């Protein structure tokens, strides 16, 4: 299988602070990789780095075999679902408007978006939300809104999907059905998925691989090990380690 993401000793600085350091992992085509770590561990930053929104200071990062500096070339192949707080929930858009937003890129500036309605319908179909086309986004439940935002990240039919805590704030059934949806999409469309989550249990069962970070790399679990208890144990311990490191210093920020 091909490597979709290959990170080697990646280091990232934001506003003079080292946010990521020594990040080494790889993601193979068709894999669902879970990224875990406490708040402020740098998970969002890692996704933004993969998108080329944040420059790397040291190390190497390739996405689809292209170094990050030239990431523009492969960006249309990447779908992104940002973390929940990045947008306004009561914004006056229909579900279709939200999904259509995913079609706006540097290439569509000053141009018409071709076959826009078709693409929106297809994306809504992927997440089984066709009937929500004209519904006001603000009237939807949290779980429904997340599905619409997932459709937005799929609207350009990407090969790689980056999801930042898509389950946060959902109730348990909604979380479960969302995770199942991602798994089935991954299978049907042979998507490669990078999924950030706080929910260790559900991510451990859904993911082919786990990456645990807190500024630096902690575990990089292999597909076969992920579900066995020893590796889960390790993941937990890593979480505890991280929390205690964080408490000790409150430091690096």
């Amino acid at each position, binding site marked *: 299988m091909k490597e979709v993401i290959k990170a080697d000793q990646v280091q990232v600085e934001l506003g003079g602070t080292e946010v990521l350091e020594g990040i080494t992992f790889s993601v193979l085509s068709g894999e669902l990789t879970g990224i875990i770590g406490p708040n402020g561990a740098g998970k969002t930053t890692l996704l933004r780095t993969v998108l080329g929104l944040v420059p790397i200071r040291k190390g190497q990062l390739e996405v689809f075999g292209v170094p990050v500096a030239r990431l523009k070339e492969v960006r249309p192949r990447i779908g992104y679902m940002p973390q929940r707080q*990045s*947008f306004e929930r009561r914004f*006056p858009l229909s579900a279709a408007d939200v999904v259509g937003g995913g079609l706006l890129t*540097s290439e569509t500036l000053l141009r018409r978006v071709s076959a826009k309605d078709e693409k929106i319908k297809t994306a809504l179909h992927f997440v089984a939300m066709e009937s929500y086309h004209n519904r006001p986004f603000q009237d939807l439940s949290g779980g429904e809104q997340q599905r619409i935002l997932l459709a937005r990240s799929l609207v350009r039919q990407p090969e790689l999907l980056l999801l930042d805590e898509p389950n946060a704030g959902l109730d348990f059934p909604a979380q479960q059905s969302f995770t199942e949806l991602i798994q089935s999409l991954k299978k049907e469309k042979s998507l490669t998925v990078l999924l950030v989550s706080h929910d260790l249990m559900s991510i451990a069962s859904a993911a082919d691989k786990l990456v645990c970070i807190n500024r630096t790399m902690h575990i990089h679990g292999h597909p076969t090990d992920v579900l066995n208890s020893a590796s889960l144990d390790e993941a937990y311990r890593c979480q505890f380690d991280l929390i205690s490191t964080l408490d000790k210093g409150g430091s690096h920020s």
Partner: protein
Amino acid sequence: MNEMLEYGFMQRALLAALLVGTLCSTISFFVVLKRLSFLGAGISHTSLGGIALGLITGVDPVISGSVFAVGTAMSTGYISRIGKISEDTVIGIYYASGMALGIALISSFKGYYPELFALLFGNILSVSTHDLIFMALAMVIITAFVVIFFRELVMICFDEEMAEAGGLPVVVIYMGLLAAMGLTVMVSIQLAGVVLVAALIVIPGATAYRLSKNYRAMLFLSIVFGLVGSFGGLFISYYYPVPPGAAIVLVLALIFALAMAVRPLFENARQNKLE
């Protein structure tokens, strides 16, 4: 009504109301969606400094005021984006110092005293042909900008992170919006005055936001409310000794209150339609 139209100043004031009403309510749509209300108040008060500087030095006050207004808007956006100082702090500083500069300059120049009240609260007699030309120019530039980048502007208001990930020139478009906001505030000061102009770029959008679940409807309603407010206010200030700025804001506030009152009816109607 007819006699009112015979006065040259009133023709100009009506044309100004049309331009200001449309411009302010279009910008208001974005101000509300992007939560820029406080910046609007900051811009208007700072531009008093620019206007006064123009009156004193002989530079066209509309030009010097615009430089202050656009400068305030864009530099506030820039400084808060770099992230060292928060937006409210920057606005708070501009707000007070611009206003202080304006008051100090105008007061020390006895000859201009009568104009201060007009500047602060607007005056229907004060719209000159020169001001109208400037308003029309601003209208053309801002309308072109909004039409060309409308989808991107809405996207940036909704979810900036996603807009950035799509490779959109977020900062450039956002700065363009701030500049448009500065220019709108400045050209509207002639009619509405420094103190109250900010309400013109807040209330129409805020009212429309309450009533609509779709941005197209919201923009349309915002413009309707803006025009009703500016024409309504103008009529009031023609028949009664009320400065237009105050009259326009009162009409807009009334519309807002009415909208709040009828909103439950809207929702019931929608509910019935769904069932």
